[in-house]
């Protein structure tokens, strides 16, 4: 705990009391502390964020950070990774930024298999703009822009990631902190693109605690290289209201050459002239 406090800053936390983001922050700090203990230099970690409640997290972390534009943190992170491939990069984004505004970057980053970790704080609404529907809000979502309920069905981003050739696909839940800590550690350690969708209840605009607490269960990490098995697992819930269970864990993990290695070889552009 004392060590984890070293990762704190003087910035006041402005998330709502009970926000799922607190769970993510705790899990993250545990994971980072453990990664540092495992030999990763603190100076080599960069937290990249977009805009939204999720992205406030970087102000609370005494780490290198890059606050990008709404929807663009993945593109920024790719540039940072290419600039210095030694850096360990974690992107913090919301479902609005990742699945609405910036979905092209998510798909292409997965396709490239660039070695970054994308952590989606998936609260299934635009919260910082006071509760509008996103690509992941359920049909019937009542927000200020859809007072009679959203008419769109959500898509399943995990399926999109599988179709985009992502090499690490996982889902976590902000209330399962130790489970999430492990997912983040594994994601960051994975050599290639790692994608973690984190179910994060929004206590103010879309409170899903009751549903998630009832339905979420941890799956075993097995048959991780089978695309067919992965498809089965990620289709079980599919963000659908009427499904009884929500599996969390790692669904898919394979190895393929990382983009930065293929593009750069042994070049490190950042240190080439500045060290």
């Amino acid at each position, binding site marked *: 705990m004392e060590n984890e406090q070293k990762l704190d800053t003087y910035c006041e936390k402005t998330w709502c009391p009970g926000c799922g983001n607190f769970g993510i922050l705790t899990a993250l700090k545990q994971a980072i502390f453990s990664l540092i203990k495992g030999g990763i230099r603190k100076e080599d970690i960069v937290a990249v964020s977009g805009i939204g409640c999720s992205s406030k997290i970087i102000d609370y972390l005494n780490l290198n950070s890059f606050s990008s534009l709404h929807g663009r943190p993945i593109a920024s992170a790719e540039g940072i990774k290419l*600039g210095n491939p030694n850096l360990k990069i974690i992107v913090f984004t919301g479902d609005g930024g990742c699945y609405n505004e910036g979905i092209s970057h998510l798909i292409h980053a997965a396709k490239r298999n660039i070695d970054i970790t994308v952590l989606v704080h998936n609260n299934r609404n635009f919260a910082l703009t006071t509760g509008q529907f996103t690509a992941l809000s359920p049909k019937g979502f009542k927000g200020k822009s859809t007072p009679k309920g959203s008419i769109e069905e959500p898509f399943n981003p995990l399926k999109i990631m599988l179709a985009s050739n992502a090499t690490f696909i996982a889902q976590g839940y902000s209330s399962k902190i130790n489970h999430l800590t492990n997912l983040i550690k594994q994601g960051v350690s994975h050599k290639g693109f790692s994608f973690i969708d984190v179910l994060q209840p929004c206590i103010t605009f879309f409170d899903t605690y009751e549903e998630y607490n009832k339905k979420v269960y941890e799956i075993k990490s097995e048959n991780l290289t089978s695309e067919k098995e992965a498809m089965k697992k990620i289709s079980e819930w599919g963000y659908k209201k009427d499904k009884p269970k929500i599996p969390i864990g790692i669904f898919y993990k394979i190895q393929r050459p990382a983009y930065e290695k293929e593009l750069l070889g042994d070049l490190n552009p*950042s240190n080439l002239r500045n060290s």
Partner: protein
Amino acid sequence: MKKDFSILIGGAAGKGSRKAGLIIAKLFSSLGYRIFIYDDYRSLIRGGNNFSHIRVSDKKVLSHREKIDFLLALDEETIKQHQSDLDKDGIIFYNSDHISIKNKKAVGIAIETMVEKAGGTFLMENTAMVAGFAKLIGIDWSVLSKLLEKEFKKFTGLNLKIAKIAFDDTKKLFKVNKLKQKSLPILTGNEALSLGAVKAGLDFYFAYPMTPATGILHFLAAHKEDFNITVAQLENEIAVINAAVGAAYTGARAMVGTSGGGFALMTEGFSLAAQNETPLVVVESQRGGSASGVPTYTAQGDLLFCLGAGHGDILRFLIAPGDAEESSFWAGKILNLSWKYQTPSILLIDKEISESTFSFDEKVLNRIKREKPLLWDKKGKYLRYKDTKNGISPLAFPGEKNVISKANSYEHDEFGITVEDGESVEKMQNKRLRKFVEMKKEVDRLESVKIYGKKTAEQAIIVWGSTKGPAKEAAERLGIKMIQLIVIQPFPEKQMQKALKGVKKLILLETNASGQMEKVLNSYGIKVDKKILKYNTRPFFPGEIEKKVKKLI
């Protein structure tokens, strides 16, 4: 033979008229002549009429003329389109397998028959055309064969065989003499600016293809090992600019290139670089029209857009070089300036510079070096946005020992944590404003305005960007003054006042429909008496400017 003449070679797209034009230019270049090639093509892959207009001179030339001395026609369309531009003593050299002309001044060459005889393909017809033309103007076989060996790495023997047949079959009508001056390489503006940026320490080029900037992507991708740089094509322009800002955050020097439409997509990222104070160079190569416009033709219609691009109170370096050598120099300079002041910048060119080919004096590269930015002294706690006297905060990068570098798109404190209280917001804006003052001072130290023609003349024309080439020639012939504005933001007020001293009549020339530069000049209290605007997406000819200006003075 004349010391300044023009050759036009044309044919359907895919017939290799551009390659043939380049070889002809290189032939003259190897004999010490100076070259300018205007390439005209449409947004298609096959068909149409592509042509290269090659101007050859004993002196430096930066534009092409209306009149043609030699019209080289790979097909009949070329003759139809261009014979009215033929000089009264001009000669047509044509593909006689395809075209029949009854004209004393026309010389036919059976390029298709020759290629067939030698066992080549239709792609080699342009080789026969070039070789025949070389003979016609009296270039020695040894000069021609040496160049062809270099140019054709594949099917060298076959191309030489075809060339020899065409050479032997054509009558010599002229004699071109070797000049007693150094032969210069020929480069496109895109290639020249790439070299300048590399000389200033470029590490990354990110892009999404868009004419007329695509040539930069192709050139740097082809030479990335030679230059020890990284080139990446990403999914769209938004990814491109955001990745470039990310790379620069690690200390790597990044540049992106596009045209107006692509830059429109990049503007939010441009604003990000201004707000989080990250160095970045955007090459904006203008093309005709709004939206998709006229993709492969030229214009200077994005000036006001570039001046205002990016939301918020931001200042950028906006620099508009006027030819290939200037593009090279300023590409290097603007990269260094971006790093010195931690700011996004725009190098504003157009199709006329990007894709035209120029004789390039490499001496300009000696004036470019990688200038070191202000780095952190490694003392105390690192503050990315340290509130310094001149507003410039020392740089340190992630991965460095004891460094926590927090770059922020939100308004932030010195460490980089988001702030929203009025006092902190104003403090950080004041820091950036002090930096803008330093940027303005820097512009006064640069050669931001250049004067040509008769420097004491009371009549002056004012131009920017590619209009420099034809306007300079016209001004020199008319004996008037020409003012070229190179650095447009921050505006070089002192240098402009000096340049305008004694000028009683000021005529503005630019290739856009609304006179965008006039609005810029007006905002600094400079009144333009007359404007000459051209907006058919073709560049000015020197003779055209001469005629139009004459009527106004």
